[in-house]
């Protein structure tokens, strides 16, 4: 098959391969670094690396709209929110393990079983006969996504809109203080609350 294509076509295919392995390796390395680091901020930055690598892979899969949205929503909105919360709560590093260490071995074993299962299912799916569809480059274009979104999938889009509204209201209700203090009093109250922290925590010990 490769003999019939021209040299430039072969070069492009090779570039696709190289890009895929490059970004896949970057994504896996960043994911492992995210799980490995105890400092939540390092984890967040590693996760941004995963998102960027996946976005690059989406571009090679002819999905430029999803690649842009991935950067905007995930690396932009969601991770900024996460980093903001990490900074707001002034989190320190996780305490070193207090759990029994054999539980980590059990967790790793379960992870390996999950990996084997997932790869087996995917192997079975991808070795099924292909329908040989016409893989045109136009599928991922914004116009085709928009047309499908506002004709065939109008109801799911509306439902997602309502879900986002509910999440916005819910987030505000959950995160606001019960007694709406004056802005200049917040710092005093915070200090006061932290001083009371030891006494407040006693109810858990008393149980």
């Amino acid at each position: 098959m490769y003999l019939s294509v021209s040299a430039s076509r072969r070069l492009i295919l090779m570039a696709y391969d190289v890009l895929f392995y490059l970004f896949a390796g970057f994504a896996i390395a960043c994911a492992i670094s995210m799980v490995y680091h105890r400092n939540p901020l390092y984890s967040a930055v590693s996760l941004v690396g995963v998102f960027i690598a996946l976005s690059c892979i989406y571009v090679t899969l002819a999905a430029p709209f999803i690649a842009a949205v991935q950067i905007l929503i995930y690396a932009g909105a969601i991770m900024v929110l996460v980093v903001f919360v990490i900074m707001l709560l002034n989190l320190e590093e996780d305490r070193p393990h207090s759990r029994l260490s054999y539980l980590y071995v059990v967790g790793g074993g379960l992870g390996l079983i999950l990996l084997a299962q997932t790869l087996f299912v995917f192997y079975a799916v991808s070795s099924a006969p292909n329908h040989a569809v016409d893989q045109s480059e136009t599928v991922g274009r914004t116009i085709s996504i928009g047309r499908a979104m506002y004709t065939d999938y109008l109801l799911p889009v509306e439902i997602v809109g309502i879900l986002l509204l509910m999440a916005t209201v819910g987030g505000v209700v959950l995160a606001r203080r019960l007694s709406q203090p004056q802005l200049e009093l917040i710092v005093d109250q915070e200090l006061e609350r932290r001083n009371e922290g030891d006494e407040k925590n006693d109810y858990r010990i008393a149980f």
Partner: protein
Amino acid sequence: MEPSLAGYLALSGILFTIGAVGVIFKRNAIGMFMCIELMLNAVNLTFIAFSRYYADVTGQLFVFMVMSVAAAEAAVGLGIIIAFFRNSQSIDVDDASILKN
């Protein structure tokens, strides 16, 4: 055609497993939240790969829906984490076991 479908699916499976193992290993609520985001992204990669190989735009639409749900999850989940931190001065999920007694 580019790298085969199996390559993308394998990458997706590996990322999903790393996310699942991370949820098991992490004790910090924000860390678990980020691992869940990683798992959602692994599934998104599967959707995009199938969308590409079957030339069907539906997969990309579902990725868009998943992203919207992830944004809603981020808003509510981080709100819960802030409320929990305000009550217990910690986001360690081991401290969230008051109902146990």
